[in-house]
């Protein structure tokens, strides 16, 4: 291996492995803080500068909390159940983290130091998007591994739920991404992002908007976020697949989950929200990476908001929602996108017409599917006895 290649690979990958775990720490703080405020609590506000005696004095809005949590996690006892499969119990959290970290390479984030090393950038791979989906799917195995190796019935239920859920939701996820791939004519992540330069984001098209909504919903399910957090449904199956995990292994799961959130939000940004496009990147190219991460955080904020609002679905409803609602809609969306593509959209009238007709078709279809799936579910009237 030539030293240059090694250097380039290190420059390309090490920053990702530093930046995203750091952002993970910040996100845990953000999530705790935001959820607390949604629930009218204060949230972490004590730990300021950890490892110093000024910890409480300069609390910095509790920003030291993630570091303190990390230290706590590191020093906690590693408990493995007596009957557990020790090898798989150890491998599962590692395997949960690896694919999540791996797919970060496929996000076309243009850090200022990456310009010189274009040949080793994975997002320039011709099939970057399909690799993304392929590798994200590995997460499922890690979760099943954890659930099975723990020898705990709740873990096993969680693991089985995770498999069923993630396999099902991968399909609408991919099908909604197909629309974009179809329009750009490439699976190359960088090309997809470049096609949306300026304000030509795909989310500003009718089919793009619908695909984005479907993609976002499916990505919630892929990353086990509320309201699709059934594999770790605390009120039903304790903590699901990581019931038997403690200490650093648990932290690895946690890290993997958040990195997966970043990755899938990053893909949503690439596909629908214009990648690194944003005001000011013509003059300051490094702003592009900032915009990219800002957009990721916007999506994560919505995820946190949803988590603070919604209860979770039941397992059969979850599968029904994927197969009977999202899947037909995303297939219909491909057709709609095809038609919208061939209708000339020169003047404002035809543009508006395409918008209205496309969204109208999709909305009516959604309505109809909803009617088919849940025919009798509606608020009821009640009587009063005097």
């Amino acid at each position, binding site marked *: 291996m030539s030293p240059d290649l090694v250097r380039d690979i290190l420059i390309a990958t090490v920053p990702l492995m530093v930046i995203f775990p750091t952002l993970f720490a910040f996100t845990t703080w953000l999530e705790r803080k*935001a959820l607390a*405020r*949604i*629930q*009218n*609590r*204060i949230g972490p506000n*004590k730990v300021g500068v950890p490892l110093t005696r000024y910890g*409480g*004095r300069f609390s910095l809005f509790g920003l030291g909390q993630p570091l303190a949590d990390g230290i706590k996690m590191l020093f906690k006892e590693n408990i493995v159940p007596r009957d557990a499969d020790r090898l798989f119990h150890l491998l599962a959290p590692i395997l949960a983290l690896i694919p999540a970290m791996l797919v970060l390479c496929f996000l076309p984030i243009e850090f200022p130091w990456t310009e010189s090393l274009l040949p080793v950038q994975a997002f320039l791979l011709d099939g970057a998007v399909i690799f993304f989906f392929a590798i994200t799917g590995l997460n499922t195995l890690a979760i099943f591994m954890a659930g099975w190796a723990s020898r705990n019935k709740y873990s096993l239920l969680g693991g089985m739920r995770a498999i069923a859920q993630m396999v099902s939701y991968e399909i609408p996820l991919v099908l909604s991404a197909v629309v974009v791939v179809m329009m750009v004519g490439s699976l190359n992540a960088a090309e997809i992002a470049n096609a949306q330069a300026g304000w030509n984001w795909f989310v500003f098209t009718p089919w793009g908007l619908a695909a984005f909504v479907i993609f976002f919903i499916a990505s919630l399910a892929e990353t086990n976020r509320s309201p699709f957090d059934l594999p770790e449904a605390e009120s039903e199956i304790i903590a699901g697949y990581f019931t038997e995990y403690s200490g650093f292994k648990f932290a690895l799961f946690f890290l993997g989950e958040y990195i997966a959130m970043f990755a899938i939000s990053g893909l949503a940004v690439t596909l629908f929200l214009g990648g690194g496009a944003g005001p000011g990147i013509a003059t300051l190219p490094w702003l592009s990476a900032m915009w990219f991460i800002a957009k990721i955080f916007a999506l994560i904020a919505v995820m946190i*908001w*949803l988590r*603070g*609002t*919604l209860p979770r679905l039941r397992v059969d409803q979850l599968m029904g929602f994927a197969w009977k609602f999202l899947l037909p809609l995303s297939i219909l969306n491909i057709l709609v996108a095809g038609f919208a593509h061939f209708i000339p959209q020169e003047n404002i009238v035809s543009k508006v017409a395409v918008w209205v007709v496309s969204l109208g078709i999709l*909305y009516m279809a*959604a*309505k109809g599917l*909803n009617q088919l799936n849940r025919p009798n579910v509606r608020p009821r009237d009640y009587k009063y006895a005097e």
Partner: protein
Amino acid sequence: MSLLGGGILKGMAVTLRNFVGSYFDRDRLTTNDYAWRAGDSLPQHAGEYPKEEGEQLRDTTTVSQYSRNFPMLLHDEGEAMDTIRCVACQICERECPPQCIYIEKSTEKMERGGNKAQFYPAKFDIDVSVCMSCQICVEVCPFDAIVMNSQFELSTSNRFGGLLLRRDDLLKSNGYYHKIHPEEAAARDRRMAEEKAAKEAKKKAAAEAARKKAEEKAKAEAEADDKKQEDTQ
């Protein structure tokens, strides 16, 4: 036909309003910041929480003057044991539902502030790990000697004797009582004063009556004597 997903959007609007509201509307934010930093001003609800480390934790009290926690023994102003109100009548021991009070009566009576000599509790223990704060001892006490404290920092590392409060731990002055439960203490003092006044009035009346009776008797006797004397004469 309602909007698809409209219920979810409405819910999200509510949580968003609460999110924003928690920064502006103090009424929404119910959590109180008890453990604050030295030097900051105390939160409104903090009561007498120790401001500095090392201050006596045992004298902390809770957030509201109405709250009750565990019983304490009252003494009036002056030396604690000299002015203790308890006379070791053991009614509270008998009535306590979880039976967490243990009293040993003194063998001899003790003089106390102007009143006549009374027994006093040689031992008065309350096991606060058993006590359920029901306040029945307070209700049945005829001497207003036992009332509820509101001190809550009772945790201890000694699991066997640490929560067994002895007589001297339980003795608190009436002034302390006024400090933690001002309204209740004032009402109790008023009632005691009234009762005392009534008692004294009654006593006075009784004394008056006795005196009158005695006088009458004396008079009658005198008269009788007179009569007798007259008779004999």
